[in-house]
């Protein structure tokens, strides 16, 4: 007996069942957080391209695809669990689950299915070290960050930022089958980039987070403390950004770009510190430039260190 048929007389609510879904393919694609996914693909590509060793381009494509799908899966799990707070925040209220287009159970099933497929496919077709890292990343983002840290501590994005920092390490592991100092450095750059990036955003979205009950740093510790911490984390981030060049892992072009953009990041962090609410221009500038900063560091590394190797692999 089918519960869903086209010729029946009773509606689902009359029978006590959930109504059949109206979710479209685009709603499911939105669950994958495509913008976050594009950053994950880019940073994983850099990890993959700068890693020593050779990899067939089709295998490299498979690795990137699995990492992207795994990242999307953790996004879907995040949207399933956070539907209640997404609904009250302006930035997230139009996501498919709070809008009612995708049911929470559907988002959960979608996220779990893609998680399983992405990890197993990466393990079978590339290597199990990368697959294990991908599985840990999904677990870290969905369970450690989303279910535990996000609602319980203002350090949520400091620790949770690790989930966003893993993709270049997974890319590296896909080629080498292991992790090394260089891949740890790529990880640390994103890890220490995350707090100033998100706290700059939180400084001009404080009311949003407060309304949702999310203990972001400005909500819990206040604006002044947050502005100081933005500066402190930037002071750690900038030397880390220059470190690949200082350790001989990157060339002079990277060193120059990392130094100049690092100086701009520091200047913006000082402006954020000196700014007082309700002004928010410095925070917005810091948030916007931090995206460009990370993109430039990785792009220069890709061109300078990885491009030659990538082209050689494609030509092989």
């Amino acid at each position, binding site marked *: 007996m089918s519960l869903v048929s086209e010729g029946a*007389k009773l509606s689902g609510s009359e029978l006590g069942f959930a109504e059949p879904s109206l979710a479209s393919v685009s709603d499911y694609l939105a669950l994958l957080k495509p913008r976050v996914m594009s950053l994950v693909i880019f940073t994983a590509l850099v990890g993959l391209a700068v890693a020593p060793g050779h990899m067939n381009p089709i295998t490299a494509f498979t690795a990137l695809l699995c990492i992207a799908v795994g990242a999307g899966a953790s996004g879907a799990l995040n949207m399933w669990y956070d539907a209640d707070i997404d609904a009250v925040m302006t930035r997230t209220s139009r996501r498919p689950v709070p809008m009612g287009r995708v049911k929470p159970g559907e988002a959960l099933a979608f996220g779990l299915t893609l998680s399983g497929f992405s990890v197993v496919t990466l393990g079978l077709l590339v290597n199990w070290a990368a697959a294990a890292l991908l599985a840990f990343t999904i677990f870290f983002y969905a369970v450690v960050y989303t279910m535990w840290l996000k609602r319980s501590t203002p350090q949520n994005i400091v620790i949770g930022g690790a989930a966003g920092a893993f993709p270049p390490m997974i890319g590296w592991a896909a080629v080498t089958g292991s992790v090394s100092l260089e891949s740890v450095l790529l990880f640390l750059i994103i890890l220490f980039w995350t707090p100033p990036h998100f706290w700059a955003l939180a400084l001009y979205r404080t009311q949003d987070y407060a309304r949702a009950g999310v203990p972001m740093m400005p909500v819990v510790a206040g604006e002044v403390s947050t502005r100081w911490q933005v500066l402190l984390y930037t002071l750690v981030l900038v030397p880390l950004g220059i470190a690949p060049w200082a350790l001989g892992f990157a060339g002079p072009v990277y060193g120059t770009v990392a130094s100049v953009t690092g100086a701009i990041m520091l200047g913006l962090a000082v402006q954020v510190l000196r700014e007082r609410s309700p002004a928010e221009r410095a925070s917005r500038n810091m948030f916007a430039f931090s995206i460009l900063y990370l993109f430039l560091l990785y792009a220069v590394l890709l061109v300078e260190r990885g491009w030659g190797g990538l082209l050689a692999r494609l030509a092989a």
Partner: protein
Amino acid sequence: MTEPRNNEKDGIVLTDAQKRARRSRSIAIAVALGALVILFYIMTLVKGPGVLVRPI
């Protein structure tokens, strides 16, 4: 008067919008599964005999 069929008695009426949404989701799942099969096929060719060698 004839007895209604079982599925008419116990089922759920799908609206046109729900049918369209279900069809688009079904096609997307079919495409994804087809792509996965092709990916495994190509990767088997790429890896050759090494396809069975998967060091942990």
